[in-house]
């Protein structure tokens, strides 16, 4: 086949067919449109203001690596005036997270950004390896998900940041829309397409790649030769998301715009006020002070179950009541640190390499 020329500059050879638009574009135009679309997502949603301290949730994987690179590029190009940090959570998974954290440490050098690594062991006194050893591989994703979400918030608090950005992309969000529809989870369906969320007292979280296709993120990393790590978590079967993902990839193969269409459909759902009101009121956890819809926040509940050897029974409210019925929590249960008023900022400054 004769080489196709770029449909934007009409000059250079096209190297990519955009899934969103079907346009055939060259490398330079691809970099430009990809970055500019993320810039528009950021400015149209007014995600940041000058002087904001922003932590990039960095796993070493493709999405967060590209996000760190693009955030740095846009912050310089458009003078957002942001202080950017890399924030990584070390779940304590040997052979998985230890390797991916090496990638984040290289990113710290390459992008010249301060890096904070916070470990489950430091926060909760448990690594995922130790948790899986106690509870087995079933349900361990519940622990990891609750612990990671809180760890990001607590790590961000220790950095005194206003905002956490994560690498969730259009494919991830479309998957979540499908999963929430299939599970009939109307409350989450209403929330999952929001670009920015903020809890009662937590730090803002947003997804600048909300409209960025996974294909383009991976192509961007490939053509920019970005350094990222790709291995599946050794404990994660997450079968339900796997089904949604396979289904979505099949849809995309048949009609590439399906991903963006599903996000738009998700955004168009309106959840009635009385449904929203039926959700439990937010309070603060009586043990650690994190926001919670019960006396104890999810992490404290899970941690208590682990410490009392009843971990597998704290996933549901009923099991929680059963645990309470056996007796009150022992006095030596750990209080998970909140880092609310930490005066010093412990970050590893990039050294000259």
């Amino acid at each position: 086949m004769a080489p196709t020329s770029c449909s934007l500059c009409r000059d250079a050879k096209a190297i990519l067919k955009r899934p969103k638009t079907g346009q055939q574009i060259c490398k330079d135009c691809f970099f430009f449109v990809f970055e500019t679309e993320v810039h528009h997502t950021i400015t149209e949603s007014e995600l940041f203001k000058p002087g904001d301290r922003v932590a990039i949730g960095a796993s070493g994987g493709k999405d967060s690596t590209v996000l760190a690179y693009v955030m740095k590029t846009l912050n310089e190009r458009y003078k957002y005036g942001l202080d950017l940090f890399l924030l990584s959570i070390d779940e304590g998974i040997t052979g998985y997270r230890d390797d991916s954290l090496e990638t984040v440490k290289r990113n710290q050098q390459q992008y010249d950004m301060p890096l904070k690594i916070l470990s489950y062991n430091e926060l909760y006194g448990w690594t995922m390896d130790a948790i899986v050893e106690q509870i087995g591989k079933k349900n361990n994703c519940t622990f990891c998900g609750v612990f990671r979400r809180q760890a990001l918030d607590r790590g961000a608090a220790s950095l005194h940041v206003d905002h956490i950005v994560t690498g969730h992309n259009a494919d991830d969000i479309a998957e979540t829309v499908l999963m929430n529809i299939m599970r009939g989870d109307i409350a989450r369906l209403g929330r999952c397409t929001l670009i920015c969320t903020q809890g009662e007292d937590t730090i803002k979280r947003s997804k600048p790649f909300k409209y960025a296709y996974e294909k383009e993120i991976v192509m961007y990393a490939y053509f920019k030769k970005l350094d990222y790590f790709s291995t599946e978590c050794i404990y994660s079967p997450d079968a339900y998301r796997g089904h949604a993902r396979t289904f979505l990839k099949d849809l995309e193969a048949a009609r590439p715009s399906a991903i963006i269409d599903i996000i738009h459909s998700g955004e168009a759902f309106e959840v009635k006020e009385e449904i929203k009101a039926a959700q439990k009121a937010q309070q603060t956890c009586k043990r650690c002070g994190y926001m919670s819809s019960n006396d104890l926040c999810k992490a404290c509940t899970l941690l208590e179950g682990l410490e009392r050897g009843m971990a597998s029974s704290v996933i549901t409210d009923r099991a929680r009541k059963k645990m309470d019925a056996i007796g009150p929590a022992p006095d030596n249960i750990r209080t998970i640190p909140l880092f609310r008023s930490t005066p010093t900022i412990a970050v590893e400054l990039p050294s000259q390499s």
Partner: protein
Amino acid sequence: MAGTMTIKLVFSGGLELLFGNERNQSVLIPSFVPSDNSTHSSPSSSSSTSSSYNNTPSTGETKAADLEYLIYHLRDHLLKERSELFMENGTIRPGILVLINNTDWELEGEGSYQLRNNDEIVFISTLHGG
């Protein structure tokens, strides 16, 4: 023109795990291959024993080697495990990106692209965590 071509291969994004954890490999592919993509007339490795290739299959029609054939060849001779994670319905599984000489294969005719000597084909899985 010789009867075989050298095709350079790159597996990344986690896909290398299905191919013996070797990111960079190469294969020898006959210039003409069975139209039904049967690969059984080929030796089973990426080694340089080109002399043992049977360039004219004894039965059936032949075609100039294309990317579709390469996919079957990789599945039958290079893939170490779980072929369903690489191929689906006669093509690459959705979610794996393919580049032909640094260009998206969707611009090059996908499976019908005719291979040339020293082509570089890159396979990147997007199915792993971010």
